[in-house]
């Protein structure tokens, strides 16, 4: 079973017959304007043509940032184009898991996490993505204007909590508590585990001693950012 080199057949009016994600054509998970921008971009036409799950790795290891749409002309990021390609290819479970679990390339891992969040069932999403809340590597995120710093665990957390990541409306994920109540998932055991309990215990003790400032130090540098005082160094005698 070979797949097509480009996305035209999948987006055709002739109808889609193939793997269904959420009961529909996988490519329709992205919104129409975003799809149009991706398909018209030079990166898609030149570099994403004729990729399969193995050659996609070539492109993915060259990724330098994650992101959605940027700029005035709403240019799609390469990350978004490759995510679209993954949706077109719909690779098998174990391939996606391999992308996610490999240690070498963090952007490939981010790509796999994004795909999993879009396509898999809630139970699997939580179970697969939660271990990666321990990955502290930095990621460069391309915002609409300029760049921002984020981390792999921050990105995974955004995927699990936010509604819109990387120019895509994510499918509504039931909250973890709901799944725990339904006995579908076990309650979460944080990797911090004992440290969290210690901190909680400290905080309890700290409150009973009525010294609420024990954990917090107030730095008094003389330039209090009080209400309405502006910061010009005027040499007035009266201290406004």
């Amino acid at each position, binding site marked *: 079973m070979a797949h097509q*080199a480009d996305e035209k057949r999948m987006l055709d009016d002739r109808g889609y017959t193939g793997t269904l994600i959420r009961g529909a054509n996988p490519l329709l998970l992205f919104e129409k304007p975003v799809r149009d921008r991706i398909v018209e971009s030079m990166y898609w036409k*030149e570099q994403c043509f004729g990729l399969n799950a193995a*050659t996609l*790795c070539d492109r993915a*290891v060259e990724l330098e940032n994650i992101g959605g749409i940027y700029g005035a002309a709403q240019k799609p990021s390469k990350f978004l184009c490759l995510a679209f390609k993954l949706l077109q290819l719909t690779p098998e479970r174990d391939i996606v898991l*391999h992308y996610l679990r490999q240690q070498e390339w963090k952007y490939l891992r981010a790509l796999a996490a994004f795909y999993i969040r879009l396509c898999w069932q809630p139970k699997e999403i939580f179970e697969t993505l939660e271990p990666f809340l321990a990955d502290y590597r930095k990621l460069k995120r391309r915002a609409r204007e300029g760049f921002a710093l984020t981390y792999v665990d921050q990105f995974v957390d955004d995927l699990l909590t936010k509604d819109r990541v990387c120019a895509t409306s994510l499918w509504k994920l039931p909250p973890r508590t709901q799944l725990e109540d339904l006995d579908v998932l076990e309650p979460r055991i944080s990797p911090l585990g004992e440290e969290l309990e210690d901190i909680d215990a400290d905080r309890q003790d700290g409150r009973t001693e009525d010294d609420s400032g024990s954990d917090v130090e107030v730095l008094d540098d003389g330039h209090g950012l009080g209400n309405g005082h502006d910061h010009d160094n005027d040499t007035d005698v009266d201290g406004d």
Partner: protein
Amino acid sequence: MADRKGAYGDKANDTSFRKTWDRAEYAEKAANRDHKLKEEGRARYEAAISGKKYYKRASTPEDAKETEARKSRLDVASRVGTTMLVSAGSAIGKRGKGAGFYCEACDLTFKDNRQLVEHENSKQHLYAIGQTGEVRRATLEDVKERLAWLKRKRDEETGREVLDLGTRLEVQKEIDEREREEKRRKRNEKRRKTKDGMGIVKQEVENDGIIC
């Protein structure tokens, strides 16, 4: 026929310029065509009996290759500022080699690198090259192998980077030397091309542009 007499009584000349026909080849071609017609007739008959419609399809050539991803990008930056001489009548519309980006397989010229890339992705071009437009599905082994290969490539490149300052300076010096040699060679070539090997002599006039 070779010794027919012409009107003025002389023999017919050498007729080797006339086209000769390989009868055996054409007989074979005719036999093939008859055979194909028979096959098609049979297929149509069978389709008509079973109530289905007969579709005449062009078959995929046996040696059609599968499409693969581009290995390299189209190099446009190097052509910036260069001049190409093309003959005026060689391109009519898109057909023929004219000014712009040319596709050899289809004999089409495009004004834009974007149009060229779009054309290279099209069915028309893929058929001309002999590719099917379908991509082979990759298995988990393929993916693992590919990632291992990429890792090896990256490790080699980082291995080649030397962090010691001394060696880096030396390497840079060598690179500079080489570039200087290149420049010198080019300059000499340019000079040789001009008259008497004198190069283009810059005419300098005193007080040029200044009205005294």
